[in-house]
């Protein structure tokens, strides 16, 4: 074998081994995010109720996923809003809380859970708002992640 070719092969193998060995210690830039999904009673993205009777329980499923790169302490806050309730990626809704679901998730873990909800007053265009909050260690409190979802409901008397 030509000495020059041998040197190139040797150098290539050496570089590959060194990079492969040190790769786990090099910082990786990945997109970090939390995911929130609201599923219908069949755990699919269809079959959502559009009309419910007041005080009658209806079933939905919540789905929360952690892709933040570390363990996260989540609370899913369900609020009862209407057409005028404002909720954005930066502002959480100022509305009565219907229920709170709490779970701690490791990286790349998802949490699927049932939500039995009911609305206690009649109204058209009632809005069920789902907000994802996570525990913020520096402030020792839960902080709005900016991730939210909603469904519209007509709540009838019978």
């Amino acid at each position: 074998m030509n000495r020059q070719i041998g040197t190139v092969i040797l150098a290539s193998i050496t570089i590959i081994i060194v990079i492969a060995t040190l790769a786990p210690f090099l910082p990786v830039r990945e997109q970090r995010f939390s995911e929130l999904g609201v599923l219908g009673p069949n755990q699919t993205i269809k079959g959502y109720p559009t009309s419910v009777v007041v005080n009658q329980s209806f079933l939905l499923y919540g789905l929360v996923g952690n892709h933040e790169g570390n363990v996260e302490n989540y609370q899913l806050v369900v609020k009862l809003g209407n057409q005028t309730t404002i909720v954005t990626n930066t502002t959480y809704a100022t509305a009565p809380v219907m229920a709170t679901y709490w779970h701690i998730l490791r990286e790349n873990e998802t949490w699927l859970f049932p939500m039995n909800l009911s609305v206690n007053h009649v109204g058209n265009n009632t809005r069920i708002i789902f907000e994802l909050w996570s525990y913020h260690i520096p402030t020792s409190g839960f902080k709005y992640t900016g991730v939210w979802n909603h469904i519209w409901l007509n709540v009838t008397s019978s």
Partner: protein
Amino acid sequence: MLIGLVISTIPSRSHEATGGQLETANNSVNTAFSSVYRAEQSGGDVSALVENLNTAVSLIQKAVAENATDPNAATADLSSATAIAQMISLNSTSVSTSGSMARQLRLYESLGTVAATLGIAALAYLRGDRVYRRLWLYVFRNHVVKKNDE
């Protein structure tokens, strides 16, 4: 008899789940979470801790749900949740320590592998030819060269 009546009408507050107990349990879980987070950042395996932490969270949620109907059970659940969370906080320290030690060991192993690879590569570059020739001579030391047309 009057004293007996008065005593029987005093609500047994010690068996009722109070807001203070709920707050204590919540704070214990959140404090434990902070410890678990730090343990994970140190490279520790926090799977078991997270599982136990979720057990504590479930107990708190159960206590909130049953407080109106069974305050004694709610109090017991909140106490259990607090105890679990405090245990997690304690265990997090050892998980954190073992995690950082394991991470350091992995780093040393990797640096050792890199040093060995570079050393072998340098030796191969500097002495490779000589070693190859010696090896060739050793392997073919008994080889008898014959003419093809013999």
